[in-house]
């Protein structure tokens, strides 16, 4: 039984009198504890799929089944309650938080909203969450804009795991990070996956990163699935035109020496 099953998902936008299908009849599934990557050129519909899966926007057509329920049928309070199981980490951790927020408040919100811990218990839970993502509890009172980009992305991950989700959508979550920080964040994500059996829908344009951490990959082109399969099989020998172009464009480091 898959955790997330998306079938025939379609989302159209009208722009300048023309209708374009940002997502066009896309189907895929994510199993518990696995990483499915979405890759494709800019405008291929990756972020639109993420927003549809999270019910931040509504599809024009298609079905989304999450944890065996018709996810698109959930309304209001029922939808808000179920959101605990389906979380997201954004590309720019600074834009992803209220500019006035502190670390503590960012982590307090999900715990409070989903009644996970009593008011008295929450500071301890926040400290535990911070430690879980490799930060120290004394970061809690700091303002979000005062901490470094890497720390911020860890806080974003702590917020995402606060409600014990089964699936986290990561939209270019490591693309804006320095390479040294990126490696640490990827390790953290893998560690969480191993410990808590969290599944990831991992959106990235970086095939190297996808090949490194994803189990399966879907290559998108103009809103349609161009190719899908085992991440390494697809990236090592792409069959589709867009797959070949993406692989050819990836910068290569020739470390053979002078």
């Amino acid at each position, binding site marked *: 039984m898959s955790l997330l099953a998306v079938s025939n998902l379609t989302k159209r936008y009208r722009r300048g009198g023309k209708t374009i299908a940002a997502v066009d009849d896309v189907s895929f599934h994510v199993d518990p504890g696995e990483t499915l990557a979405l890759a494709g050129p800019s405008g291929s519909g990756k972020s639109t799929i993420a*927003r549809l899966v*999270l019910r*931040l926007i509504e599809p024009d057509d298609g079905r989304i089944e999450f944890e065996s329920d018709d996810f698109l049928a959930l309304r209001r309070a029922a939808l*808000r*309650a179920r*959101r*605990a199981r*389906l*979380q*997201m980490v*954004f590309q*720019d951790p600074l*834009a*992803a*938080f*209220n*500019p*006035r927020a502190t670390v503590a408040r960012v982590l307090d*919100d*999900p715990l409070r*909203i*989903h009644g996970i811990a009593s008011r008295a218990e929450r500071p301890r839970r926040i400290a535990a969450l911070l430690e879980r993502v490799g930060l120290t509890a004394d970061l809690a009172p700091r303002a979000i804009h005062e901490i470094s980009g890497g720390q911020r992305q860890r806080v974003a991950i702590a*917020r995402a795991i606060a*409600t014990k989700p089964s699936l986290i959508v990561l939209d270019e979550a490591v693309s804006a990070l320095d390479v040294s920080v990126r490696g640490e964040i990827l390790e953290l994500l893998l560690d969480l996956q191993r410990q808590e059996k969290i599944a990831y829908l991992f959106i990235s344009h970086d095939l190297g990163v996808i090949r490194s951490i994803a189990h399966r990959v879907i290559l998108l082109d103009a809103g349609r699935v161009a190719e899908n399969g085992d991440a390494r099989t697809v990236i090592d020998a792409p069959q589709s035109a867009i797959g070949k172009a993406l692989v050819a464009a990836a910068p290569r480091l020739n470390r053979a020496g002078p």
Partner: protein
Amino acid sequence: MSALRRFLRTPEAVAGAILLAVLIAMALSASLLFPGDPQAIAGPALLPPFQDWSLPLGTDRLGRDVLAELFHGARTSLAVGLAAAAAALVVGAVVGTLAGFAGGLVDEVLMRITDAFQTVPSFLLALAFVSVVGPSLGVVAIALGTWTGPARVARAEVLSIRERDYVAGARVIGMHPLAIAFREVLPNALPPVLAMSSVIVAAAILTEAALSFLGLGDPNRVTWGGMISEGRAVLRTAPFLSIVPGIALVLTVLGVYLAGEGIVETTAVRRGLS
């Protein structure tokens, strides 16, 4: 700290702040310096200014102390002006936030209501309201005509903030839409709305004076508008009765405006730098 220093470096802002400080000092000290009823008879009628040093600005037609009236009038102007402006800002911010955040039909309805209020000149609106409900609700009457500006600005700001990632983030963690609108979005939409407050306070003070001038102010309180109106009957013989509160009114509005602009300027500079 440095914002204060920048503020103090702008001469207009400092002038405005001084004017405003004098006005506030007058309002606060009115009942200390002039205890008792400022509308009581204090001396002979129509005493010109600078004649009797116990009544430095002279007396009006009924022999009331003009200086005492001026101090107590400062209190009314400030209280009514601030209360009306605050009410306008709160109502405007709330309506604008709801409209911008909810979008769709809610937005449509709220903005049509805003349009309706905006097409009627705000003074006429206040006038109509006071003549129906009576002068005791002057604050509401003034706010009625001025909340539309803040509402439009708040809505425009909310429309842009609504699309930001952090609002999507708040939805993803399951926050209630009203909590998102008022806890996450509104506080960040406030700066441009608050930037309008100097103009709104100044306008509210003027409207209050105009209502009082027309005899629609609170009859139990001294107001500058009422004083000007009183003096009108003897404009030829005792022009000072209209000129003194008139000057007070002009200086007050100028002070509020300059100080407000100074604050906006300095905060804008700070935001521009970061």
